[in-house]
């Protein structure tokens, strides 16, 4: 048999169910590989001993009806895990141990999965390169000194490096799809309201969604099925009949109308990405889909809108970190001084910058000019999508305007960093589902992704389109284990 860590999530599940591999064997293989991969800096907290114990427990009385029977999972450190340190990659939560479990991780454990550890990300999920983490940069297994993208950078890096069979991330403006694209993996942001936000460290509550990150589309459908559930503990969780995404997965996309938005051809986009997009269209035609030219006229305004809405919500959400009930506390001369010093010492530069932007746009005299204006433009962006979805079943775009970049290359220019999310942000603003799949390589052999955007709650459709394209693309992630001595 090939290496255990080379098997996909679905293959592992089948092997456990047919009793060919035990949970202990799988867990041991991932623990050993993870232990040799410190150079990538993917883990913040390791729970390897517990994982091994839990895998033994599973093997002693295996429940093979479970969807993720005894499968080990490392997860983004934005999900609260009961009794296991959860930091959101921030100094202010450096020693925070939740007394409750997020609904998403609970769904994983209920399906039989086992926690391997917590993965690095951008601080409070604010970043596109995993360079804002208090616990240091994450390195991509694609190449030394290359960023894995962000904010779910540790998740993407660990997944591509085979330190976890699959993983989960969160996506507020592209934080699942952009790192998936940078690392040659599959990442899906579900429709707003599909996956519970309960127990996820909040960034921008009207945009945040958790989603699966996997090595292929089949694994993605399986993991989404486990993650998505109606949750009364999340006030914006939507109570709809969730399909069985995994059993419903098929390659019949004949006659589907796929829109190609002209506004996604941006200035300075490398020719390779344009070519990849063209190839994507050809693959879809080969599968029997119909290509339709469409226009999303307010696309250019999505990013500036996002950089008002998201920081405004963040400044409000992060007001809770005041040093009183949990988290870091700095000593001050009085209560206000204690707040100011705690927050100054506890937050990193990017988080402070966004809190400042958010505070400014919500402050007296500026609310209408910025925040209200952004909410109106957000409506126009959503209207764009509503209009085109009367004509098409899904939309195909590149996932990112460039491939991965070097550590430090963009960290001094916030606006150039923000531009990374130009193709992913509109999807969050409109609350739609989007999936990024690996589609090719650039001249440096760095992966490039294509994004498929769907109608609200039409995840099955974009999964099926992705599944059909995946077969045609036949992408192989050829990573040499250069970081393992």
């Amino acid at each position, binding site marked *: 048999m090939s290496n255990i860590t080379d098997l996909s999530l679905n293959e592992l599940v089948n092997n456990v169910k047919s009793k060919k591999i035990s949970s202990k064997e799988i867990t041991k293989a991932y623990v050993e590989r993870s232990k040799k991969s410190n150079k990538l800096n993917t883990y913040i907290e390791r729970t390897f001993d517990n994982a091994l114990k839990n895998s033994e427990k599973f093997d002693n009385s295996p429940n093979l009806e479970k969807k993720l029977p005894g499968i080990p999972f490392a997860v983004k450190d934005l999900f609260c895990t009961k009794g296991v340190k959860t930091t959101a990659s921030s100094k202010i939560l450096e020693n925070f141990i939740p007394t409750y479990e997020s609904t998403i991780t609970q769904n994983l454990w209920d399906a039989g999965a086992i926690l391997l550890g917590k993965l690095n990300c951008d601080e409070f999920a604010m970043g596109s390169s995993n360079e804002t983490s208090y616990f240091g940069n994450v390195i991509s297994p694609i190449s030394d000194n290359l960023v894995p993208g962000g904010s779910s950078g540790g998740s993407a890096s660990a997944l591509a490096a085979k330190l976890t069979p699959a993983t989960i991330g969160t996506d507020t403006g592209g934080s699942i799809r952009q790192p998936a694209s940078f690392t040659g993996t599959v990442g899906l942001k579900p429709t707003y309201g599909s996956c519970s936000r309960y127990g996820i460290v909040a960034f921008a509550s009207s945009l945040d969604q958790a989603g699966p990150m996997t090595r292929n589309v089949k694994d993605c459908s399986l993991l989404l099925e486990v993650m998505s559930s109606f949750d009364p503990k999340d006030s914006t969780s939507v109570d709809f009949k969730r399909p069985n995404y995994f059993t419903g997965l098929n390659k019949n996309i004949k006659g589907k109308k796929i829109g190609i938005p002209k506004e996604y051809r941006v200035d300075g986009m490398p020719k390779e990405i344009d070519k990849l997009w063209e190839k994507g269209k050809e693959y879809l035609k080969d599968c029997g889909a119909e290509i339709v030219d469409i226009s999303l006229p307010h696309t250019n305004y999505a990013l500036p809108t996002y950089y008002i809405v998201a920081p405004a919500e963040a400044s409000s959400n992060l007001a809770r970190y005041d040093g009183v009930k949990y988290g870091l*506390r700095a000593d001050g001369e009085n209560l206000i001084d204690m707040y100011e010093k705690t*927050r100054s010492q506890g937050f990193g530069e990017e988080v402070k910058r966004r809190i400042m932007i958010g505070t400014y746009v919500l402050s007296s005299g500026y609310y209408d000019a910025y925040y*209200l*204006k952004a909410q109106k433009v957000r409506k126009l962006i959503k209207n764009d999508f509503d209009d085109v979805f009367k004509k098409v079943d899904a939309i195909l775009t590149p996932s990112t305007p460039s491939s991965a970049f070097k550590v430090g290359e963009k960290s001094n220019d916030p606006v150039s960093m923000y531009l990374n999310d130009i193709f992913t942000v509109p999807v969050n603003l409109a609350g739609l589902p989007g999936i990024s799949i690996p589609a090719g390589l650039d001249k440096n052999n760095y992966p490039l992704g294509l994004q498929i955007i769907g109608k609200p709650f039409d995840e099955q459709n974009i999964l099926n389109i992705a599944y059909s394209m995946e077969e045609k693309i036949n992408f192989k992630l050829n990573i040499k284990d250069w970081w393992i001595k």
Partner: protein
Amino acid sequence: MAIDLKTVKHISKLARISVNDEKAKKLEKDLNSIFKWIEQLNELNTDKVEPLTSIAETKLRLRKDKILSENIRDEILKNSPKDNKDYFVVPKVVE
């Protein structure tokens, strides 16, 4: 609308984040470049557009006014930055 140093200090006060002069100057530069970029939204006429406040179209649900977890004082105090088994401790507020 340029953001000056005085405004940066005012926002930092509102945000309860202390910044020294050097950091304030850096923030002044960053915020101005970000807001200059954001200004492009003014190209759009939005006079007749309704603001989008939430993607979720459902009305907020009501639930029974029932206590779901009791006697969890110790759990709640567990992550308190200053040790005390009965209360959260803060600097003196009332003189």
